[in-house]
């Protein structure tokens, strides 16, 4: 079992190292547009995440921004 896992992990790592990007650099103009950003304005998204965290029982996995104390 461990040998099989070792082989699988080896295949994963070696295959991963040989993956070629399927989107060429010259095709990334749209992705580079500022509107294609999950957190375009960190100061604003951090604040609204804080509001949601204060008003909702759920917490975590908000994405790139945030931080702080997670206080009550």
């Amino acid at each position, binding site marked *: 079992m461990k040998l099989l896992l070792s082989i699988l992990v080896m295949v994963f790592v070696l295959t991963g190292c040989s993956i070629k990007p399927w989107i060429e650099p010259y095709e990334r103009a749209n992705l580079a547009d500022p509107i294609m950003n999950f957190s375009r304005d960190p100061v604003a998204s951090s604040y609204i995440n804080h509001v949601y965290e204060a008003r909702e029982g759920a917490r975590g996995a908000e994405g790139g921004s945030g931080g702080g*104390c*997670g206080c009550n």
Partner: protein
Amino acid sequence: MVQRVAQVVVVAVTKPSSVKTDQHQGNFHWSLIFVGVLGVCVPLMAAVLPENRADVMYHAYSGGGLDVGGPSILARKSIGKSTSVWGNYYVDTITSATIDVVTSASEYTEERTEKSLGADYLYDNTTLSLSYTNSVENDFNANSVNIGISQLMFGDLTTVTLGYAKGWDVITATGRPLVEEEADRQKYKLGLSQVITKNLLMGFNFETITDEGFLNNPYRQVRYLDGSGGYDKEFEEYPKTRTSHAVAMRALYYLPYRAAIRGEVRGYTDTWGINGNMAELGYIHPTKQGWTYEASYRVYSQTSADFYSDLFSTEAEFIYRARDKELSTYSTQTIGLGVSYEFKKHGWGFLDKGSANIFYNRIQIDYENFHDLRVTGVTPGTEPLYSLSADVFRIFISAWY
């Protein structure tokens, strides 16, 4: 060249596997997974540090008898080619006359000040992050440290982020001098951002949070039937530990014209019995004149904590008891609108560009087992259900330099 280096690393890591002990085989697996996850693979484009930028924001929240406003100033600056430092100064000025306050105490005003400092260090396609936050108010002091590592891989199409945070809280209570409690918090984060097509970006986030210590609000009370047709009150009592798991998927899609739609779903569960779901849709529309319009709609719902009750049957009915409306069963809907204007796009002095922004959110919360105790003269438990609406403003100016 880089691939050759990767192969050498893999060979070096695999070598101990010839020693067939459980301990070495365990090391072998973890080492390989570490190499694979951190992606000692073929980077075609280099990772970059965040932009040099400063934001000055005024934020305001008003709803349910709670008014919170204040500034937030965030500035980031690169030092050399591989380090970026940032700082945030944030203030909440709070005037509270919420339903909890007006039914058990009197309106109060307080202030919370939060200061954060952080740094990011870029080495090749790896970004290491470290930050520290201190939050102070008259009855709550919180400190936290965040560390993170982010790796760009597979030709700049995949970013994997691992994060850990540790927090230390000290809780006191005005008017209750015997209350001085502590709580420790830990966060474990895993993030994956993936370019799917030249128009589609997706993100996956998973976070586990563990809390240990004094986790309830030292002021809030639960109510219980007093045996004579009315009710009385006693302080809440929460478990000393809480562990939660949240998983989120998000997507951004670039439309055939210059605009984007975004979507997000999140699932949540914790050891207090709360299960929550969230979904959000958004639309971003920039114009050639420098304006960007944004609209969003968000829904959230949750079940109540196992130890929550709007009305307990007797005093100290259970070991743990809560009547925090954020631990009850409820649903929320949020509409968001925003407009930004980008100015001086070709620079002005040392500035590269600037923007002025205003965002507005309207939150509607409908509670399903939290009753409005402002209504008196009725049988306990038959008061109307509580609901609130809140208006949230973010007004800020940003400058890039």
